[in-house]
């Protein structure tokens, strides 16, 4: 069974996110004054062969721990698409 997995990697809360700040500044320049606390992360989608959605999630989490996210600076979430 193959599952579509969505991984979201975000800079850890509390860590300065200059990309987010720059985007927030640009939004302000464009007149979107309602926007705030912008943070920029990374989205990764992939197919994972697994026996169940829970198995797919566990496998994807191992990929996050080893490759997708840096444990020093980033947090991640994993979502498994249920067809």
């Amino acid at each position: 069974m193959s599952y579509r997995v969505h991984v979201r990697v975000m800079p850890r809360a509390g860590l300065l996110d200059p990309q987010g700040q720059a985007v927030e500044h640009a939004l302000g320049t464009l007149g979107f004054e309602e926007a705030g606390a912008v943070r920029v992360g990374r989205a990764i989608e992939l197919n994972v062969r697994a026996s169940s959605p829970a198995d797919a999630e566990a496998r994807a989490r191992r990929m996050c721990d080893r490759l997708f996210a840096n444990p020093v600076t980033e947090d991640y979430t994993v979502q498994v698409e249920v067809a």
Partner: protein
Amino acid sequence: MQRVAVVRFPGSNCDFDSLRAAAHVGAEAYFVWHRDTDLRGADVVVLPGGFSYGDYLRAGAIARFSPVMQAVQRHAGDGGAVFGICNGFQILCEAGLLPGALVRNAGLHFVSKPVDLRVERTDTVFTSEYAAGERVRLPVSHGEGRYVADEATLALLEGEGRVVLRYLPDAMGVEPNPNGSTRDIAGICNPAGTVVGIMPHPDRAWVANLGSTDGLRFFTSMAAWQPATPGRSQ
């Protein structure tokens, strides 16, 4: 004579700079490809600057899994010396050979300019010929050079004297550090001082024609180092 393996990843671009600098101080320097698993009897491994694997995902994140890094891990574990310059420092952090991480510069810009630094630790393989507290000027050239680590790691590094280089305010005193690095950290080492990672480029400052020779002693220090068992990485 010191055997110095300069690792080339796809996207390395300071490989020749490091090779030439090592050869200049009398080392037997040669390239090792990222797919190689044999360091060919290296005493010292240099991970040069550049953009290994295009900096995809994060700087150094993919290089750390290349076959050669297994050999570099073993080499370091056996007490062999490793010098990570710029992208090499990022790889050492990603590989867990040094703690912490290097993230996007606080000012977002890629910075490429000479900066003033203080040599904080001199009993490492690569800084033994500097005086403690000595001021040097070296070029930096990076977009992701802001060193970060959790408080416990920072306390450990400071407590064990493992900060090798720190950014100093420039002559005008206006710009304290080029990338927002925590505690102005520009380079750190492992407890033994055999694994050293720094963001500035001594490989671009070792001969007068390059505009500065302040970086030369990183390489003469390396050449003067006496490994316990030469050519350990067979």
